[in-house]
């Protein structure tokens, strides 16, 4: 399950998620918002009837702006709605920003049932953080990470951004030294992407955004992978690194195209297949703005932005391939055949042959597929062949 909390104290200039910062999150709005989440959960749970809960992820926005008791109410409601998976403990993650306010709430978040925190550090270099428009500095990041350990979260994930404006290879090197010294269970390291419509996109158009050259960015990516591996944190997806066994349960569900129930404004759900109506599942997207979403939920009318997207077999196959190839373990031919009736080669023989010839994809004897090392840098070039 995914819960979207769209509130932020400020909006970062590279962010294109559904967030609001214009108004402070008052207690009144928070209570109304949480009540809305609970109503939506109740409304949508039947579509996921009979399923067990594998993960619950509070993302945003800045979900740690919620009071711990709000998080607790949602956690309890979700537990009531779905039985826990027997295989492993339910992964309950909360995204946290390095700030004083949130730090003070960490022990209570832990008590509310949150076991994993994902801290939006982005960088440990103040000049880089400043250019990224972040509110916090390196010192705050240190304090927050320490507070997370003190609060007893068993799993700590840390977000990094690299190839940021003005960032040098040395800046990243220093970041990596800090990261390894904190020994997190998980790291997400994203190359900065300039999304259309963001202030960064505007600055780039005006020639005011100085991003590291391609060679530098490629070297940074290599260094990241090597340094983290040396510290026992292995790359397992294009931007994800973890100690063995600490891979993110929640994100992995997306890459394996498993059903996810999303609640909150702009949240997206991938509903499980309904045999004769939607044999390959469907996707729903909620209204993006807080008030229209709330009003939709409260009045019992539509809170969704558009009619659900119902997948046909070809679209579902394309998604299944490009999502699975994001993981280093790649696309499992057996699992793919289980869903689509035949291994990938049956549908994509020409594409697979060309990509193999170009050295971008490896194919196992059973038909499983995986990106090669050069393929990982050209992943979108590969993915285009399958959609």
């Amino acid at each position, binding site marked *: 399950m*995914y819960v*979207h909390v769209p509130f932020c104290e400020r909006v970062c200039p590279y962010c294109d*998620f*559904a967030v609001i910062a214009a108004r402070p999150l008052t207690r009144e709005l928070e209570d109304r918002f949480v009540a809305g989440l609970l109503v939506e959960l109740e409304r949508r749970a039947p579509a996921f009837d009979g399923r067990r809960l594998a993960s619950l992820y509070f993302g945003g926005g800045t979900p740690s702006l919620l009071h711990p008791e709000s998080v607790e109410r949602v956690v309890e409601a979700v537990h009531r709605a779905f039985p826990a998976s027997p295989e492993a403990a339910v992964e309950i993650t909360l995204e946290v920003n390095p700030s004083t306010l949130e730090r003070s709430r960490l022990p209570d978040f832990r008590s509310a049932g949150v076991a994993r925190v994902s801290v939006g550090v982005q960088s440990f270099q103040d000049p880089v953080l400043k250019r990224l428009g972040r509110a916090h500095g390196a010192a705050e990041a240190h304090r927050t990470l320490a507070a997370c350990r003190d609060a007893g979260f068993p799993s700590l994930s840390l977000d990094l951004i690299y190839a940021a404006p003005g960032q040098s290879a040395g800046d990243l090197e220093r970041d990596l030294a800090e990261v390894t010294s904190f020994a997190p269970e998980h790291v997400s390291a*994203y*190359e*900065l*992407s300039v999304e259309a419509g963001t202030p960064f996109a505007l600055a780039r158009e005006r020639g005011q955004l100085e991003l590291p050259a*391609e060679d530098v*960015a*490629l070297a940074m990516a290599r260094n990241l992978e090597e340094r983290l591996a040396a510290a026992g944190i292995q790359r397992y997806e*294009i*931007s994800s690194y973890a100690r063995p066994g600490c891979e993110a349960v929640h*994100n992995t569900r*997306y*890459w394996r195209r498993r059903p*996810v129930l*999303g609640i909150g404004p*702009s*949240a*997206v759900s*991938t509903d499980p297949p309904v045999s004769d109506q939607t044999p390959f599942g469907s*996707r729903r*997207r909620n209204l993006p703005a807080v008030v229209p979403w709330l009003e939709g939920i409260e009045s019992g009318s539509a809170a969704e932005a558009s009619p659900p*997207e119902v997948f046909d077999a070809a*679209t579902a196959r*394309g*998604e299944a391939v*490009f*999502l699975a190839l*994001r993981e280093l373990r790649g696309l499992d031919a057996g699992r793919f055949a289980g869903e689509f009736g035949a291994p990938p080669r049956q549908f994509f023989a020409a594409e697979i042959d060309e990509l193999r010839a*170009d050295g971008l994809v490896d194919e196992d004897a059973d038909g499983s597929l995986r990106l090669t090392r050069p393929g*990982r*840098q*050209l*992943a*979108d*070039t590969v*993915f*285009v*062949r399958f*959609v």
Partner: protein
Amino acid sequence: MTDPSRIRNFCIVAHIDHGKSTLADRLLDATQSISKREKRAQFLDNMDLERERGITIKAQTVRMSYVASDGERYILNLIDTPGHVDFSYEVSRALHACEGAILVVDAAQGIEAQTLANAYLAVDAGLEIIPIVNKIDLPSADPDRVAVEIEDVIGLDAADVLSVSAKEGDGIPELLEAIIGRIPPPKGDREAPTRALVFDAWFDSYVGAAMLVRVVDGSLTRGARICMMAHGTERDIQELHVVDPFPRKVEALRAGEVGVVIAGVKTLAEVFVGDTLCLAGKNLPERLPGFLEAKPMVFTGLYPVSSEDFEALKTALVKLKLNDSSLSYEPETSAALGFGFRCGFLGFLHSEIIQERLEREYDLDLITTAPTVRYRVVMPGGEAFEIESPASLPSAGEYDHIEEPMILATIHTPDDYLGPVLALCQDRHGTQRDMMHHGSRVQVRYELPLAEVVLDFHDRIKSVTRGYGSFDYEFIDYRRADLVKLDVLVNGESIDALSLIVHREKAHGHGTILVRKLKEFIPRQMYEVVLQAAIGARVVARTTVKALRKNVTAKCYGGDISRKRKLLEKQKAGKRRMKKVGSVEIPQEAFLAALKLDDS
């Protein structure tokens, strides 16, 4: 039967946008030729495309009935003429169907290049000219100044210039009286052997080709057997029409009259504008003077982006050709682009109109190669042949020399912009023929290679004169020139569709800009792409498109999956529109990179 003394045949000539179509509408109103209900703006322009571009592609004529102040009823045949430089031969044929011309000049803008070109054509055709200053309702109108300009430049008495606002209807009654009073009635001899001038033709999907004719001598009657003298084809007249303003069947058309002849001619290709119709028999009369077959001047290769569309493109060209005999096309094969057509056009505007119609009306995705002209290749033995495509040029050494078509360009500009105009003409290998100053305006005439003007010369004139300059041209002859074929190589493979014929001294500069432009259009690919421009085996310019090293979306979670998939789908659709040459994907636009050579 109307006595010839009560017929007036005239046309309206003007520079583009000086208000010709509006004036035609106003004359139709004033003679009640068209009821309000039937009316639509600019009645004479019947294709949407013409309306959008504000020009008239096919001429139409309309017959009006008018009771003049002398109490007599007159027949007025208004002959509409095409209004763009590419169609000057068609204009001249239409003028030969008239005895008079209304010369429209914009009261604010004054005389422009086409005003003058058309006025000269009308004088050459022996027409009585009624000059009018139009748009006198505009705040910036200066009819007195323009009248003086007309006297100075064209030599028509300023006192004879009428002031009109076609938009408001002012001056229209005076104009109608001037048409009756000043334009002579047709002179033809109704007893002489029949001769009729074909001055326009179009395709009608019911009857086939329809010919618009002016009967010069004798008469045409329904059922008569006629001979189309250009090729000696004989046909029986099935129908005769006058258009007032909708077609109406008549039994005969007599000397001085204008009408439509339907004679079982299946396609427009069999009809030649400027041809003479006479009665079939042993003793044919002498042909009317001035006949020329419309000859394409500009050629481009048109290729469907996806090869399955070849048949659809062929069908579309066949249909367009039915109504446009000046369009020519022949199948052509390109190693790079596959099967397509080499198409001939009267000029660059004509080619743009056809391409637009193919894409819009027939929903085709096309790759167009850079336009070229028809070169004459002279072999060592002295025999010569013409080529319409750089690909058909023999290797250097096999031929003696190449000749290129030359034009005489007439350019009008305010004298402030004379310097840049002269510089542009020099840069395009022009030779100045003469220059005339009148007031603050200058007319210069240059001899220029047609190849140097087909593409963007008109736009460049507009741009260096801030829109105040204008341009017209006529073909002169073929002249020897030092020309070479510039080939483009992608990863060492010559792309025939990108070859150009250029002046030797410009080859290096062109080649450098061309490969640089191509580099902008060709996306980075898996492997490095080497782009070269070469004359024969000699490489004159080289650049590379570096290999793609990084193409990966960092984040992909729940909220984005559909969005990311759609982005990938869009990229895939973009790839589908590219032509794969060897292992290199070349987008459609790259084939037009040669068009942008002047942006350097």
